[in-house]
């Protein structure tokens, strides 16, 4: 593991170079992860609150065409979409975000290999950064992550002081990427960075571990029909805010859209399991007809099914869904309550 130092000025220059090189740079802006056009838009602060939405949008867009078609009197001509992923750098990813593509890759490459996702992710360089923020909604520690987790990052930054970051090169991809920017780095002091991460782990900024995910998984396996689920959804309004801001929710819907008399496209759009019509059958029957069942699905998918199938919890503990919930439902509370029943 190599470790170097970069100061803010050089980091800015590095960013400038990325953009000027015709690559895409994504970094936390005022409120969201944004495509950076000018380096002044970047807000790189380990103590900042997580953005409202994650950056999964850049690899798994909220709406994307998967095929174009042209109708004729007798046939339909299909035109494939050729995705040439462009080199994209994500700077300042929180540890609870950086892991998301690893988790998503599992489902997008399970039987069908999703080129749309893969082509983009292949070209992504994730520069993660240690997190010094925790509020009552954070629970990364409960899902096996932490504010100093390097999981999913190609390069990891540790803020040493106001002006300097320790740069840890984690993967070969990261190494390869950093080679061309060596001029901006100075030699680092691994001890100092280590001390900083250790301090981070023990500080009050560390979210408290509120549940044991393995216990939760077991409980879920046994309690599919449990009265606990009955009233759980009564205050939920059935929007998909929680799923759409989640870094790892990945359900999508396929719709065909004509855009002229002869032409159209097939779209892949985000979908959310909390929508009432998510499981609505053509017959009119809806197996998840009440919100309690939908909520059960959400928890089971995240903490049981996905774990069973892919060995990963489908949650990074970022707390976005709870923070933004219009009716203040806190997923952390519900998950920790399961095992208490």
């Amino acid at each position, binding site marked *: 593991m190599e470790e170097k130092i970069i100061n803010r000025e050089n980091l800015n220059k590095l960013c400038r170079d990325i953009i000027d090189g015709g690559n895409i740079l994504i970094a936390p802006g005022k409120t969201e992860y944004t495509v950076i056009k000018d380096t002044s838009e970047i807000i790189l602060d380990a103590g900042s609150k997580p953005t409202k939405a994650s950056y999964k949008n850049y690899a798994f867009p909220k709406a994307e065409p998967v095929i174009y078609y042209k109708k004729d*009197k007798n046939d339909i001509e299909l035109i494939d979409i050729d995705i040439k992923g462009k080199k994209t750098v994500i700077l300042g990813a929180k540890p609870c975000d950086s892991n998301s593509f690893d988790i998503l890759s599992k489902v997008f490459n399970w039987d069908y290999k999703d080129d749309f996702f893969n082509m983009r992710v292949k070209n992504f360089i994730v520069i993660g950064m240690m997190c010094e923020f925790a509020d009552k909604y954070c629970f990364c520690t409960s899902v096996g992550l932490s504010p100093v987790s390097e999981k999913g990052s190609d390069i990891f930054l540790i803020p040493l002081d106001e002006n300097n970051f320790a740069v840890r090169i984690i993967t070969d991809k990261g190494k390869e990427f950093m080679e061309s920017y060596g001029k901006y780095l100075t030699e680092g002091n691994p001890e100092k960075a280590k001390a900083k991460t250790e301090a981070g782990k023990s500080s009050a900024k560390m979210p408290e571990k509120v549940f044991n995910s393995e216990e939760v998984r077991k409980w879920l396996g046994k309690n599919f029909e449990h009265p606990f689920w009955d009233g759980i959804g009564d205050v939920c309004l059935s929007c998909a805010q929680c799923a759409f801001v989640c870094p790892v929710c990945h359900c999508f819907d396929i719709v065909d859209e*004509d855009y002229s*008399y002869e032409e159209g496209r097939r779209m892949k759009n985000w979908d959310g399991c909390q929508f009432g019509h998510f499981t609505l059958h053509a017959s*009119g029957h809806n197996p998840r007809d009440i919100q309690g069942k939908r909520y059960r699905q959400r928890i089971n998918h995240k903490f049981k099914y996905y774990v069973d199938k892919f060995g990963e919890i489908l949650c990074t503990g970022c707390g976005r869904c709870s923070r933004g919930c219009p009716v203040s439902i806190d997923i952390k509370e519900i998950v920790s309550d399961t095992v208490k029943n």
Partner: protein
Amino acid sequence: MKIGVFICHCGENIGRTVDCPRVSKAAEWFPGVVHSVDYKYMCSDPGQNMIKDAIREKGLDAIVVGSCSPHMHEKTFRKAALDAGINPFLCEMANLREHVSWVHDDIEEATQKAIDLTRMAVEKVKRNQPLATIKVPVTKRTLVIGGGIAGIQAALDVANAGYEVVLVEKEPSIGGHMSQLSETFPTLDCSQCILTPRMVEVYQHPKIKLMTYSEVEKVEGFIGNFHVTIRQKARHIDASKCTGCGLCITKCPIRKKAFNSFEEGMAYRPAVYVPFPQAVPNIPVIDETVCTYYKNGKCGVCVKVCGREAIMFDQQDKLVTEEIGAIIMATGYKLYDISKKPDDSFIKGYGEYGYGKYKDVIDGLQFERIASASGPTSGEFKRPSDGKEPKKVVFIQCVGSRDDSKGFSYCSKICCMYTAKHAMLYKHKVHDGEAYVFYMDIRSGGKMYEEFVRRAIEEDGVKYVRGRVSKVYEQNGKYIVKGEDTIAGMPVEIEADMVVLATAMIAQENASTLAQTVGIPYDKYGFFNEAHPKLRPIESTTGGIFLAGACQSPKDIPESVAMASAAAAKTMVLFGSDMLEREPVVARVNELLCGGCFYCRKVCPYSAIEVREIKDRNGVVIKEVAYVNDGLCQGCGTCTATCPSKSVELMGFTNEQIFAQIAAL
């Protein structure tokens, strides 16, 4: 779905500017089209046979005809489709004549537009559903509302054709305004003499059920199937016992408490009364508001004198329901009472004429009563204030008519004639009297009408002054009429003994309420609206409801009678078949999706939306949804656009069809 496209040249009409063969060639390429041809005249027999043969031979499911306006030939082509064995509603038209060839010159542009319109029609027809004509049975009974001359005429005509009639009149007697008139223009024959026999005929007609002193309370249902609730107001006289001897009337001690409205307030009537001696039915009514019995339970003179024990003080209003197939509205008019300032702020009143303030300023109907041999003065000209014979009478026309600022914009149509008649009647009786008429224009269109006015001027010496009157005021027992003679260009002042105002004919009191009850539209003045001003003047826009007489607009007697007979004929047309057929363009609710907000119900002009309860297995109501009554729905689609969840669709114009048309633009 196999669709056939048929492009018509309409001789040269379409062919001149639209390249029809090109359109039909282009249509071949539209998805779903299996057959596309063009032909000189599609609507001709060979043209129609071409369509029928194609349907049969190619097994077409639907057709599009690109020709003229659907208003022109939609029926023709739908029939052709039906003849060839497909549902007529699987036929759509593209309007290539009125909307393309006749309005565009450029062949290229016109042809392109024709192709586009054809494509839109093809896309629409793909989504058409076979619809079945709606059939409803017809109840062959007619309700006539209003027993004036129009109502009487309509009732007699329908009844004489052999259909039952229910005639409802709100007053105790039929006869209406005509029974108040002295003589009628332009013949000067006695109004009562020609009317009374007809009233009696109504009374005696076996097919007519006469309900006087009654009002229509509620109308439900639709053409051919109305359920009408009628309130029979309590007469307090047992009609089955009363012989009409009139003893109760002569003995009633209440003589001067109530004005006689038949005499236009110029005489009194007892508490028990018939409006006028020739009343039909000749059964009195007790006026609760003035009868002593209702005040203190005493008197009862009438009970004592009635040999038939017909007095029923405790009689109550009765609600009667009738099953009706057609309704004729003949509610007539009333005169604009200018003494009162109606609440409706756009009517300003005519304070400057002193009507209601000076006893000798009267309106036309009051003059009729004074002139009438059966009136309060027994036909002698006496002015109401002091009973003296007026030597100078001023008639003012257009009081309230043709006056945007204070009255109504319309012309009341009959005042020119009746004023001439009044002046003439006056001059015939008071030979040394002077009659002045202030007029704006003389409108005397009608057989022998102009001749009548000329007679008044030339033979009877009535003085016509062209101009408006600005003020009438009393001075030393005379009425000073200040006006302008616009021909002489001078202000004039006439010292008159009596002033007669030809006040406007306005809609009957509560006409708009009745219209709402019955469910027909009315204009801003309260007159009922006809379905079409030229071609359907007799029908209202609501099916099965017809109009007769002055309830539709000011009319004189012959016009009212003509209209009444026409309305009678219209009901007979309706009764000509046992079942009514209607186009199935009606709204349909998807009960699964309906959220029960009932905005559709609020906007429906026909009250066609009903509430249906949806129950679960245990019979518990889980929601209320909208339901469309086919009989009432006229297919406007206002509900479809209002419905927030789009749970209601208009058959034949579904949203899917319209979206498809938009997509094919």
